């Protein structure tokens, strides 16, 4: 059990950093959504079509805002875990990344096949979500191994 602890802490720190980057990205998109996009097309962003599309809003809430809340939740859960070392907390964060993965796959699909335009900021967010999911899988695996070890020692 003591062997996997430092690794779990490292994973939690990675969670913390990546969710914060995701939060920066989503906040930028949310602010742009509410302020109104700069009325222009540019090589770097290409976001006009994507962010202005009807898929950018879900039940009246911009998806960028939902993304921001999602990243902030992961960020805060990571801090709580690093502070309290309660493993259930980081497990909860790891489970949440499934939702992030599904949302990201949906948004990539929309950009490539439905809207047929790519927004770099949205693709970047998909990349952070997928990274969080992969890290989350490691956390869950680590957790499971630990449980097995505990059960074994209990049986012995």
């Amino acid at each position: 059990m003591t062997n996997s602890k430092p690794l779990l802490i490292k994973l939690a720190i990675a969670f913390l950093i990546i969710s914060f980057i995701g939060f920066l990205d989503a906040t930028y998109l949310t602010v742009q959504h509410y302020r109104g996009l700069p009325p222009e097309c540019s090589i770097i962003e290409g976001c006009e079509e994507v962010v202005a599309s009807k898929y950018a809003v879900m039940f009246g809430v911009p998806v960028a805002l939902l993304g921001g809340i999602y990243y902030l939740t992961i960020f805060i859960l990571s801090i709580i875990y690093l502070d309290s070392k309660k493993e259930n907390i980081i497990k909860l964060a790891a489970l949440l990344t499934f939702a992030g993965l599904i949302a990201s796959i949906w948004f990539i699909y929309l950009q490539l096949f439905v809207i047929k335009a790519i927004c770099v900021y949205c693709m970047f967010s998909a990349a952070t979500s997928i990274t969080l999911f992969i890290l989350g899988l490691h956390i869950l695996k680590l957790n499971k191994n630990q449980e097995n070890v505990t059960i074994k020692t209990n049986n012995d």
Partner: protein
Amino acid sequence: MEEQVTKQEKRELRREEREKEGRSQKTKIFIRRLAMWSFVVFIVGGTIFGMVQLAGNPSSGQPALLLDAVSATDWLKGEKEAKTILVEYSDFQCPACANYYPVVKQLAQDFGDKLQIVYRHFPLRQIHKNADASAYAAEAAGKQGKFWEMHDMIFENQSEWANKYSVEEIFAQYAVSLGLNLEKFKSDFNSKEVKDKVENDYLSGIRSNVNATPTFFLNGKKILNPRSYDEFKTIINQAGDSVSNN
């Protein structure tokens, strides 16, 4: 008896000390947590504030200047002698440019001979596959004196051709409906001269730090894209006043 009292006292004292220690330990943890969460709130708040600043002023910094002056090869609208000059760098396939198209047209109507409007190509070929072809079509029509007619038609029907593959055929149809000589239009469309003209416009945009479309230069100075027709009109009026005052 005395000894017992001291023992009891000692025990109580020790317990009190332990409690005190425990309490100060708890206070320490509490203060540490408070500091940590204040820091988190500060960072998150700072992030949101920073992003509002960043997204709010996209082109803060040095005002960009138009380096290539209006020349005989440019497409002009309005009065040649007008002192107020609006140069637009635009991409026919850019939705934002199509949104500005009626705005600029209205400006030309309202200002009449007080305003000179110049259209320059800035095809964003990296993201718009038909940007170049549409610019060639307008230039080819210009060879037969109908640049602005084709310009209007291309913008008005942007959604019809923007994502098509056989876009040359569509532009040929526009040429026919404008009464152009189709043979000449097609050969001009593919000519080096037309391609060079578009490329020169593009390069002049690069020289003036254009990186998005539409980009407007009013009397040689880049302006932030106005959010409404009235805002645009006000900016042009102000520029006109400062020109006539000098």
